[in-house]
């Protein structure tokens, strides 16, 4: 069941939390709302849920205008800190949504038991139904919260920073598990996160938000490989900045020249080239190519890739590069070496202060 967000705005005092946001989440999709804190992502999620109301705009769920009251929307919501009912056992937590139904539609106790136990099996917590939330680990609480939200057979599932309160290892495990669960259930889901890695790994599509506006919508590959603007470049992973000027459709950044597809209508204006660390190649010799000369400041050889911190000789700006272990060992770089840097895959934007 799809979610359509049409022209939603929200002001909190003088602060603009959401500024005329349009977004369609397709049926069965897992969408991530990604952005820094204060970008409006959580507010948008809570407006979809009905926990907050928009000043303008409308929410359409499954082709119908969403009802005013949160409890009538039939939306599953997983809270950031789970919000499990502390005085209820795991069983009663999951059964809550069924027990509060009007008498006519409330399932019989045996049926409730059946549903709860099957949900516990789904979230891999069989045998823990008598425990209380305080007796569970963070990851277990998260899964109880998910089972509780699924018990009401919601039209859509909303998750607010679902892995925010977990430690790194559990977080990784759980997000892979959530992805698999989504592939099984195919429930339209939206989750909020400020962690780009999490969004890139789990989501079908990513909505990058900043200052109450959507900066870019796309698949993880689209937003990572083709960021729409400097903000997205900066927010999705590390990036190097090369300052230059555009002239006759060619951007000059020192010796490096790149064809400029972006700001072609303006001539001789300052621009910035954005290059990801893994799109930086370094070599020990110039090889006749246009390069930037830099000195190695620091090498971190731990992990599958080797991170090299460089400093340009001309303007002393830092450059971050990532090279393979093979190259690192075959070229045997050490701190203080002079190397020749060539950026590949440069994203060019007009020069202004990136907002982060």
């Amino acid at each position, binding site marked *: 069941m799809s979610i359509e967000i049409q022209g939603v705005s929200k002001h909190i005092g003088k602060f603009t939390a959401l500024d005329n946001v349009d977004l369609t989440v397709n049926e069965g999709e897992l969408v991530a709302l990604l952005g820094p804190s204060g970008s409006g992502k959580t507010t948008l999620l809570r407006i979809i849920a009905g926990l907050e109301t928009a000043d303008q705009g409308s929410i359409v769920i499954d082709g119908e205008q969403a009802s005013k009251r*949160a409890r009538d929307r039939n939306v599953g*919501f997983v809270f950031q800190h789970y*919000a499990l*009912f502390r*005085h209820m056992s795991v069983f009663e937590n999951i059964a809550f949504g069924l027990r509060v139904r009007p008498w006519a539609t409330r399932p019989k106790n045996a049926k409730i038991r059946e549903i709860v136990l099957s949900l516990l099996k789904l979230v891999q917590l069989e045998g823990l139904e008598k425990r209380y939330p*305080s007796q569970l680990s963070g990851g277990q609480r998260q899964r109880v919260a998910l089972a509780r939200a699924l018990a009401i057979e919601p039209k859509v599932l909303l998750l607010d920073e679902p892995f925010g309160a977990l430690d790194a290892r559990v977080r990784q495990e759980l997000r892979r598990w959530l992805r698999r669960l989504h592939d099984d259930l195919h429930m339209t889901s939206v989750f909020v996160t400020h962690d780009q890695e999490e969004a890139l790994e789990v989501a079908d599509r990513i909505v990058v938000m900043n200052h109450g506006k959507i900066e870019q919508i796309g698949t993880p590959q689209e937003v990572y490989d083709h960021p729409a603007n400097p903000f997205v470049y900066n927010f999705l992973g590390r990036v190097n900045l090369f300052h230059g000027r555009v002239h006759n459709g060619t951007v000059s950044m020192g010796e490096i020249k790149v064809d400029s597809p972006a700001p072609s209508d303006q001539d001789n204006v300052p621009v910035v080239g954005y290059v990801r660390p893994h799109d930086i190649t370094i070599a020990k010799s110039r090889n006749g190519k246009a390069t930037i000369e830099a000195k190695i400041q620091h090498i971190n050889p731990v992990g599958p890739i080797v991170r090299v911190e460089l400093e340009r000789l001309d303007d002393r700006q830092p450059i971050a590069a990532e090279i393979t272990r093979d190259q690192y060992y075959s070229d045997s770089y050490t701190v203080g070496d002079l190397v020749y840097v060539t950026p590949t895959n440069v994203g060019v934007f007009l020069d202004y202060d990136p907002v982060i």
Partner: protein
Amino acid sequence: MAGAPKLNLKQRHTGRSVTKPIWVRIILTLIAIIFLVGFLLLPLLEVFAQAFAGGVATYFATFKDPFVLSAIRLTLLAAAIAVPLNVVFGVAAAWSISKFNFPGKNILITLIDIPFAVSPVIAGLVFLLLFGHQGVLGPWLEAHNWKIVFAPAGIVIATLFVTFPFVARELIPLMQSQGTDEEQAALMLGANGWQMFRRITVPNIKWGLIYGVILCNSRAMGEFGAVYVVSGSIQGVTNTMPLEIETRMENFDFTTAYTLATALAMLALITLIVKTIVEYRSTRLLAEATE
């Protein structure tokens, strides 16, 4: 991560940064014990000794005195009205203060504290000036033949006033620390307002509420000053237990005074025991909530 600073906090809480030498601890403990025995236990024992001075039969005969019975009845009545009303008020006030933001919130918090800040005698005086013969509303009340001052109604109103803050004061920090997440979760799961309140809010504040009720009740039964001013001390009509004790003392009827005192003391003791149990539970709950 979020866990790390929390852990430090906990360590600071339980770790003993300052360790006093053993003799300091013994002296401090001794002072506390001597104080408790001298100012609490001895007077209490004296009350019981005096009450039973005339023998067990005399002790129980006291409870057949119609004035004594009337005083007990009025005390129970005042508590029976004041406590439930203050529970309703306290929950409503704590709910609105802890779960919503609205202009004048701080003024409301201050207003709740007024009965704590004002001397009970002055509170009684206020009602006397308001409802008394010379008071603002006095003539109007008399015209309708309603008696408040020097009548049981006045006792109830004065008791209500002085016990006003207990429930609310107890619940506000508890409810603030618990936040509104669980209530919102209940709404998202389809619960209506009443279901949310009964199934989520009430169980979460249960122990705090019971603690508030106990404090409220013991104050309602033991209140003297405010009640004294509006009562006029009419035996059999407007005397509560503390007032009856005072009347008997003035008339040198010490046995009855002490007997009634033991009844009040017993009540206090029971309250104290229940309070200790509840306090243990509610502090644990508060710690859980803030965790």
